[in-house]
């Protein structure tokens, strides 16, 4: 793992159209790079990520015999894989590539300070070149992918994913913490936009899953330990009733843990009267010919809905997002109920019936004389309970009038929020969460189903508020991702792991204590025993390398030297680096 050749660095500065070049003087940056030690080629180019840009890198590697490449463009979180592949195609180890983020971290956030932005860009390029000089090539490693998928959550998304993977010929372990499969959909008496009850939709799926020879279902169960790495995870599942624990080896994971409907205590007198319910509670009411008042069992003659309860609240953490499904579900419920109920009122902010068939429900509801009234964003309706009667008052924006209403039943269309244990789940699978509380996908536009934990996919409402149909599409998509890994049978993994220099190890056991993955152990076969890293278990956080007090642990691709050389390049003038004084 040593690079004996003298570093020959190529620097490629990207304009990214106007995105970078509109603010940063890219030519000046490329020119400055020329003067840096070991840089043998430097240029600027319109789009480095384009085919032409990629070809340019390959050509210049060959022409100048480059053995290190620095691309100054966008975030490495976006294009590092692209450029790593490009240099590799030209025979340069992928770990000898370094990317400078001139777009997200410079031009886009210092738009009005072109000079300072250019200075920053130059510094960042200097730092990257300095790092490139001391980069080392690392071996490319592949691991096998076990042909079993763990699906966490037996709601509509989990069921769909399990069935698709099973039908494709791979094994599935489906873990559901409730005693029954089916999730929320199973409880709903009517679903939109199809005219079916949740049970009708979910029953055939459950039946198929149960009958499938490739799917093992564990209900009342929970994943309590999750270890390993892509293709080779070790999972411990506990039965919540019997407390029996079982271990499984699996290759890929789909997390489909879904959502819970928000219980809006503190909103619109919820909890003060049995006649104020959430939309989810309404959907779970037993089917009957006539909707009855929960308080006294008399038929409901007047019903009101309030939208966006616990959704779309700027500045309220976890409630800023739109819950996506509620507008159409409300419109559908209202249109259906209007056939039996005299007055149906919907209070809304915006009507978001965006999906296939949704707008039709909205129109149907209007046709059936459901009353829609828009309330102002900053003045929500006021609901009080007096003498066990529900009183509402609000301002109708469009009529510009203060209105009141006394419904027999008030339905609050509440937000979809993540389940209470989502933090635990996130931690278990090393997933990050976005502002809405749900899991972050790998990329919000182009990789909505994969995550930053290699081998772990997300589907359905675990990713964001979604309706059942969208969750089903996600589930099949996530299944495709899992199958893609398993069908190939092997996958490349990062070589950025830590390594113990045994001659410097003093067996202080610090690294073993601090490693979150149990990847470090003592090798008792040598005398004195020294620590060693099980590379497959190491995920590359580098905590051990900084904790090791005798500098005996190297974190590949992130060595002390590779980090500090960047600081030096930023803070010290070239003269100073040669041992001189600061200028």
């Amino acid at each position, binding site marked *: 793992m040593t690079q004996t050749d003298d570093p020959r660095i190529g620097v490629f500065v990207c304009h990214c159209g106007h995105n970078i070049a509109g603010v940063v003087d890219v030519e000046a940056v490329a020119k400055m790079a020329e003067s840096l030690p070991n840089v043998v080629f430097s240029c600027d180019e319109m789009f480095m990520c384009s085919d032409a840009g990629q070809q340019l890198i390959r050509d210049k590697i060959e022409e100048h015999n480059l053995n290190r490449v620095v691309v100054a463009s966008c*975030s*490495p*979180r*976006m294009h590092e894989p692209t450029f790593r592949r490009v240099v590799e195609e030209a025979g340069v180890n992928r770990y000898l590539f370094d990317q400078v*983020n001139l*777009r*997200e*971290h*410079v031009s*886009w*956030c*210092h*738009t*009005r*300070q072109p000079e*300072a*932005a250019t*200075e*920053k860009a130059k*510094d*960042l390029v200097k*730092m990257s070149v300095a790092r490139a000089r001391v980069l080392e090539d690392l071996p490319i490693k592949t691991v096998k992918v076990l042909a079993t998928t763990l699906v966490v959550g037996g709601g509509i998304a989990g069921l769909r994913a399990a069935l698709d993977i099973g039908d494709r010929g791979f094994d599935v372990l489906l873990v559901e913490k409730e005693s029954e499969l089916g999730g929320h959909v199973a409880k709903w008496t009517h679903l939109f936009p199809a005219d079916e009850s949740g049970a009708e939709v979910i029953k055939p799926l459950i039946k198929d899953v149960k009958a499938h020879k490739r799917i093992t279902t564990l209900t009342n169960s929970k994943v309590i330990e999750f270890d390993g790495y892509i293709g080779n995870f070790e999972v411990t599942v506990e039965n919540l009733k019997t407390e029996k624990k079982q271990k499984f080896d699996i290759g890929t994971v789909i997390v489909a843990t879904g959502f819970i409907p928000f219980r809006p205590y503190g909103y619109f007198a919820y909890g003060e009267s049995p006649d104020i319910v959430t939309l989810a509670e309404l959907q779970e009411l037993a089917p009957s010919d006539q909707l009855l008042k929960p308080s006294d069992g008399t038929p409901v003659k007047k019903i009101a809905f309030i939208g966006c309860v616990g959704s779309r609240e700027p500045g309220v953490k976890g409630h800023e997002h739109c819950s996506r499904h509620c507008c159409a579900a409300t419109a559908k419920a209202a249109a259906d109920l209007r056939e039996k109920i005299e007055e149906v009122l919907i209070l809304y902010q915006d009507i978001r019936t965006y999906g296939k068939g949704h707008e039709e429900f909205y129109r149907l509801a209007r046709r059936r004389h459901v009353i829609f009234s828009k309330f102002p964003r900053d003045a929500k309706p006021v609901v009080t309970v007096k003498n066990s009667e529900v009183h509402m008052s609000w301002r109708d924006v469009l009529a510009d009038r203060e209105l009141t209403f006394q419904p027999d039943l008030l339905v609050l269309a509440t937000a979809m929020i993540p389940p209470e244990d989502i*933090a635990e789940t*996130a*931690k278990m699978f*090393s997933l*990050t*969460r*976005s*502002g809405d509380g749900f899991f*972050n996908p790998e990329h919000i536009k182009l990789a909505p189903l994969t995550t*930053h*934990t290699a081998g772990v996919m997300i589907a359905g409402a675990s990713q964001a508020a979604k309706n059942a149909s969208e969750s089903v599409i996600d589930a099949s998509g996530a299944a495709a991702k899992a199958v893609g890994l398993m069908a190939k049978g092997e996958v490349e993994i990062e070589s*950025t792991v830590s390594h113990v220099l045994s001659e410097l190890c003093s067996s202080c056991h610090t690294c073993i204590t*601090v490693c*979150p*993955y149990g990847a470090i152990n003592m090798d008792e076969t040598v005398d004195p025993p020294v620590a060693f890293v099980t590379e497959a278990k190491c*995920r*590359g*956080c*580098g*905590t051990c*390398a*900084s*904790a090791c007090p005798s500098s005996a642990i190297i*974190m590949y691709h*992130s060595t*002390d030297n590779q*980090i*500090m050389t*960047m*600081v*030096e390049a*930023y*803070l*010290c003038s070239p003269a100073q680096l040669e041992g001189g004084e*600061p200028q």
Partner: protein
Amino acid sequence: MTTVEKKEVQAKKEWEPQIVAFCCNWCSYAGADLAGTSRIQYPPNARIIRVNCTGRISPEFILASLEMGADGVLVSGCHPGDCHYSSGNLKLRARLTIMKMAIEQAGINPDRIRLQWASASEAQIFADGVTTIVEQVRALGPLRREWK
């Protein structure tokens, strides 16, 4: 104003805080990316060094940065409990707590070091954090002037 004073005023004007920023790949580097894509503007004084996890950051990096002339150091990572590597950020927090005490004992204002948590979605928090450290350090002046 004497010439010397004038020179000092001039020097103060030209001096811009140099900030070394260590960010973890999963939360804060991504948060900084989002700040960029959201076009949130913040001072251009910080140079971000990407590490996989804040647990990788040794006090040595920070102290050496200061010795090399950094006026301030920003460390930004995942919120406690949200670490992509389970608890690297907690280990870092403990190190920095002790290190900041030591720095203060050594006569350096601990406001030159800022530890913040900014998740991948908290672009504004990230940008505000950069602004805060730059302003704090600007108020303190260049590191070498601070010694009593």
